[in-house]
């Protein structure tokens, strides 16, 4: 069981959270017609064996989207930050 430390609710079992995948993917803007950019954003994944930046939503709690830095081999969690705070430039 992973234990994720939600900045709002405290440390909880990961079964309270929904996984949202790779947090480093930047989708092109909707008016961007570049096929290659869309192909890469939708389908290509770095899939690291080690440190991975990923999205989790605390659906069983505050419902906030979080960015979790986790090791995919050891399950060690390095940091948990609100995705909104990160998007606004971090604090």
């Amino acid at each position, binding site marked *: 069981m992973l234990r994720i430390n939600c900045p709002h609710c405290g440390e909880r079992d990961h*079964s309270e959270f929904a996984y949202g*995948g790779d947090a480093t993917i930047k989708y092109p803007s909707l008016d961007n017609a570049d096929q290659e950019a869309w192909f890469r954003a939708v*389908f290509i*994944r770095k*899939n690291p*064996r080690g440190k991975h930046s990923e999205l989790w939503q605390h659906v069983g709690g505050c419902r906030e989207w979080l960015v979790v830095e986790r090791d*995919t081999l050891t*399950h060690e969690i390095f940091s948990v930050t609100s995705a909104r705070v990160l998007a606004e430039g971090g604090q």
Partner: protein
Amino acid sequence: MQRYSVFSLLGNALTGNRNWERAWRDPDPKPEYDVIVIGGGGHGLSTAYYLAKEHGVRKVALLEKGYLGGGNVGRNTTIVRSNYMIPGNTEFYELSLKLWEELSRDLNYNVMFSQRGQVSLATSPAQMEAYSRRGNVMRMNGIDAELLDREQLMKLLPYLDYSPSARYRLHGGMIQQRAGTARHDAVAWGYARGASNRGVDLIQQCEVLGFLREGDRIVGVETTKGPIRAKKVAMAVAGSTTTLAEKAGLELPIESHLLQAFVTEPLKPMIHHVISFATAHFYISQSDKGGLVLGGDLDGYNSYAQRGNLPVVDEVLTIAKALIPSLSRLRVLRHWAGVMDMSMDGSPIIDISPIPGLYINCGWCYGGFKATPASGFTFAHTIARDEPHPCNAKLRLDRFRRGYQIDERGAGPVPGWH
């Protein structure tokens, strides 16, 4: 080579089983090959076998970092079926099932293929409709499928919970009679023996660390046993696909996820079929030793950890007990996990890669065991002829770029949902 037969069994029994030959040779690597296959799982071994057998490629080496059959091929729940509906998968998995039906004879090795029938359960009228559509597509492609109504299901699988208070209301199901299970280790060993006897060098404890290049062409591999050159290099490394492909400079539409399985203490024969339950993603069958083999969903997030996780244990065993109440006091003996290549559309990739000299076989998600014969058969064709076989013509890498994904489940580009 020593052939296995009634006479070899008798002869060896009478001489105290001291004279059996090794099943395969254990050679040192040569400096150069026509084809190097990386990965001694089911897919790598079958590829090497068919390269030698169907295409007469003379100098083939298979490199395995651990021991043959030590990967997912020895870690899965052994279900073999061909009830796929989407063009691309339909013909591919049916080719595989046809090869399974001949495999023990072809390899002169008993892979214990048991066509006990696989039942897919439906819990709503809508799901019954979906199965009748799937069954019709299968039958139009010459694949066997039969619908079962609730009464037929009660007769066939009397131990499921049909009571008014049942957690799941069972409406019926679909059965593929030709589906079943096979002994997974035997599949690896049978292909290994067959390949070795046809001249393939199977080299264990030999990890591929990187690639040899001339210009942009791959001309061999760097290994823990030194450099080995080859005209063509083919990879079939399941849970290591991303990390190895990265060394060749190839990025793929793949995520690694964990899949767990469980086995209980042995019982007398009780579950005669393979049962799949899509409503809650659960499946169960009984092994020849009597243990019930069961499994469920992925753990759900990227992982290379290769060990299980309690939420899934809880979930799978809860579903098992809800469907088959009589299992409630049974003990689970073991559970384990394998690292799966989850592709972005849930279907595999067998292709010539964009990097000259490199061929790829990956993205099997959690259904790759049933694919073992056809995967090797079509991959060998692709490598030897430099063009896909008709049965893997739609399983190419560029389908993602061109917008021709094969999304059997309709889940979209989210690997964890397939």
